[in-house]
């Protein structure tokens, strides 16, 4: 239904076609009131996560267990994938393997074409966003309707999701009201969330009942049983898959867990980390098609094997897409999802996406203060801050970072390593700050000074004061 022409210009690209995160962030923060509102919306979710986590006595042990199970699974991913395929096939599920996005999209189209299906209802799947499935199918005559409320809102607006759990987190209810007025015929000026959701319910219920096929993502696939688990709050995955004659489930190969019992660990963590709920409303376990229905599972690599082979970055594949790292990130909260130019934004996106194309996404690992808040909340203990730091080293080594920045960093390193030189530099900088007018001093400080006030210079440095007052024993 992308019927409103070209998508809006979203990420800011530099002259080489690389994503310029800082420029995208600058565009976002130009609206100060909205930035403050966006920041507070996400912090509200982070606080709900904290309250939910604090009610679980075993929380830290659960994180350890989740990390250990994922680590183990990734260490034998080939075996578990083969086991999953064998068990699922034995249950009558058709398993497909897709090396990349193009293969995935062709497989999905093939399944639809074989049944003459034209009307597809989708529940949330970041993998299909990653693969560009919607545009691919729409271009080939398939009517694709995203059914998660947030995804439907951004689909009607011809925008991508700005967040992996809350796709329309960047929008105000007044904007959503306008979109619904235009597309669903709700009264002009109506921005009541209950009323807008009621209108979406009616609009989408008709699509569910008329669908020829339903596509869902997969939260977990169970190797030992050959089944899949899909979690939603809205019930859209269940409505789509319970009605349509074909269910296609697209999953990244990292979604496997060995045993059904392992889900006890992951489902205790997932919703609490994502939204602060004790559980999603629906945690649906699918182990065979309904009578008369076909169930297809598409296992997608699309760069995951390569990431698994990277000694410093394989741990990012433990991710269960809860978005806790995104909600807590001080940079995401104040730069918005679109500044990353990546399907998955925030800290996890900034360690996953450079694996696809480091040159294009070299600015993403720098979209961080390295504060480590992401790693502190991650339910599967991905060492996000460490991985961000390591991608920076690779981006610089590959020459994808401004040579001026590289030169400055090396000079700074030399100054910090030499106490005498450091004293001299601090002395000169202090003298300059005391005499040069502030606006000029801020200009001299480059990018740092553009958005920040420079410190007041005390009359005497701490070092000078210490020498005068506390030097040596009395």
């Amino acid at each position: 239904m992308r019927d409103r022409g070209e998508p809006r210009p979203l990420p800011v690209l530099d002259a080489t076609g690389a994503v310029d995160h800082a420029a995208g962030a600058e565009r976002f923060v130009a609206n100060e009131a909205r930035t403050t509102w966006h920041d507070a919306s996400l912090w509200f979710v982070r606080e709900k996560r904290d309250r939910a986590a604090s009610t679980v006595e075993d929380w830290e042990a659960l994180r350890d267990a989740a990390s250990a199970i994922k680590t183990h699974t990734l260490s034998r991913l080939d075996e578990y994938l083969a086991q999953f395929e064998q068990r699922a096939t034995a249950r009558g599920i058709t398993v497909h393997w897709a090396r990349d996005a193009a293969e995935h999209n062709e497989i999905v189209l093939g399944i639809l074409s074989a049944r003459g299906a034209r009307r597809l209802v989708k529940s949330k799947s970041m993998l299909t966003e990653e693969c560009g499935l919607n545009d691919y199918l729409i271009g080939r005559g398939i009517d694709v309707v995203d059914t998660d409320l947030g995804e439907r809102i951004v689909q009607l607006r011809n925008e991508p999701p700005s967040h992996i759990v809350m796709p329309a987190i960047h929008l105000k209810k007044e904007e959503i009201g306008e979109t619904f007025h235009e597309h669903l015929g709700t009264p002009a000026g109506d921005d009541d969330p209950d009323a807008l959701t009621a209108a979406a319910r009616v609009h989408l219920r008709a699509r569910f009942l008329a669908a020829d096929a339903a596509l869902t993502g997969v939260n977990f696939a169970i190797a030992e049983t050959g089944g899949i688990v899909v979690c939603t709050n809205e019930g859209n995955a269940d409505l789509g898959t319970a009605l349509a004659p074909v269910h296609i489930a697209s999953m990244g190969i990292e979604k496997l867990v060995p045993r059904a019992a392992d889900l006890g660990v992951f489902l205790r963590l997932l919703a609490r980390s994502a939204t602060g709920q004790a559980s999603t409303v629906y945690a649906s376990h699918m182990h065979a098609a309904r009578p008369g229905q076909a169930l297809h599972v598409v296992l997608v690599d699309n760069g995951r094997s390569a990431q698994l082979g990277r000694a410093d970055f394989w741990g990012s594949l433990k991710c269960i897409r809860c978005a806790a790292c995104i909600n807590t990130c001080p940079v995401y909260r104040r730069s918005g999802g679109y500044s990353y130019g990546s399907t998955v934004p925030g800290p996890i996106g900034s360690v996953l996406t450079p694996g696809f194309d480091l040159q294009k996404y070299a600015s993403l690992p720098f979209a961080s203060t390295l504060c480590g808040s992401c790693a502190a909340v991650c339910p599967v203990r991905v060492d996000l801050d460490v991985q961000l730091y390591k991608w920076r080293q690779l981006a610089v080594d590959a020459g994808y970072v401004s040579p001026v920045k590289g030169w400055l960093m090396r000079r700074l390193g030399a100054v910090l390593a030499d106490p005498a030189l450091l004293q001299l530099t601090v002395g000169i900088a202090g003298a300059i700050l005391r005499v040069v007018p502030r606006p000029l001093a801020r200009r001299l400080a480059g990018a740092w000074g553009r958005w920040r006030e420079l410190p007041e210079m005390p009359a005497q440095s701490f070092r000078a004061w210490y020498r005068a007052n506390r030097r040596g024993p009395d």
Partner: protein
Amino acid sequence: MPLGFAQRIVSRDDLVARFIDSAAGAAARVVHGTRAELATLVAGFSGDGLASDGVARFDREAQRVASRCLSMVPGVPGTVAVPDDPHALADLDLLVCEGVLGVAENGGIWLPASRLGERSALVLARHVVVVLARSSIVADLHAAYAAVDVSAESFGVFLAGPSKTADIEQSLVIGAHGAMGVTVVLLDE
């Protein structure tokens, strides 16, 4: 890899109290009853008694007395049979079913396909009534997965309250796509 999350010893009353708290947190309504009273209880549920918040305010059908009812619980009469085509349940008012077990930590109830009759009924029905024996409540998901084989049937779901969304400015709205109301009838057995 043993998981090693040992069951802490808690009394049945404590488990039930925790379940009720969690179910309320998931916006489910919990009532108490006996198996003998079930038919009367369910017959007494009128539309607006089951859901009055969220999108139900805007759905005239949700306000009337439930007339199209699929009941999978013996002794509770329904008015609709399990159809061959799930689309036939598009206007279902009420699904009455019985849960296998309840999870105290999150208010979830395990419902395999056989307990739903038709799995689309769970999300097509405006209201869902889940009957649950107090004795079936377990402490947490570890205990739940130990007690049920989730692969025994083609479909099974942990259901925690009515359908909801917070996709518009983080405002919680009850009744996104599925049931606008979930009532749990806890049986004293």
